[in-house]
């Protein structure tokens, strides 16, 4: 689990900006942010494959919108 491998990532300037601002907002390094994104993506994918759906809910109106994942 602790052994790590290095890879080069090619991102557009816009993607890089998002990565930078998100990592700053979350107080995480870019690597930690991407690892966290991967954990989350895998979890969502597994649950969708399991027949579950992903929704956003408006806290006030309780209106729900299903999130369609690629």
């Amino acid at each position, binding site marked *: *689990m*602790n*052994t790590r491998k290095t890879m080069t990532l090619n991102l557009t300037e816009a993607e890089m900006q998002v990565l930078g601002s998100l990592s700053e907002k*979350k*107080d*995480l*390094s870019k690597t*930690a942010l991407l*690892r*966290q994104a*991967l*954990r*989350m993506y*895998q*979890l969502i994918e*597994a649950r969708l494959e399991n027949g579950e759906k992903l929704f956003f809910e408006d806290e006030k109106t309780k209106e729900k919108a299903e999130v369609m994942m690629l």
Partner: protein
Amino acid sequence: MTVRVRQVHLLNVERCQPEPAELWDAVTEQQLTDWENEWVPELLKAIERLEREGIESRHWPQSSHWNWRKKVEALRGMLASPGFSIVCDGLTQGMMIVDTVKKRCRIDNQKGKPLVYVEFVENAPWNRRELCDSPRYRGVGSILMRAAIELSVESEFGGRIGLHSLSQAHDFYAYLWHDGPWRRF
């Protein structure tokens, strides 16, 4: 699957001495076999004894319905939900599953920040004071909590952890970071 094993020590209560143990960063088939062959029969015996002694069911172990095989199999391979276990004297002494994505800090000055959330943590029945008169080992819960903290630090979550506590474990968590002679293990 590669399992990282780190050496730790538990307190052997009978001998009143530290005993080498292993902290694994996984819950493997070995743990599930120990749970089925050793933990469950021991737990059932303890519950039967509590029932014979007329102890109300609300005082029985609240984790007794947990099925570790189902939990572990449902989460196998999920990066978001790593497991940990402690092995000593050839047997699993404690297990824990955490979540690293679904929960956020609630406390005011850390609100919204990521944390490691402890989903399930359990000590072997023979180490639990509420189940046996003379527990075998002490230190299992503290070592597992520290493993959660270490994961939080590695994930750059600053060591933040969170959990919902079964009522029988309130005091343990409430005083986890307080010092005192009873907290040596």
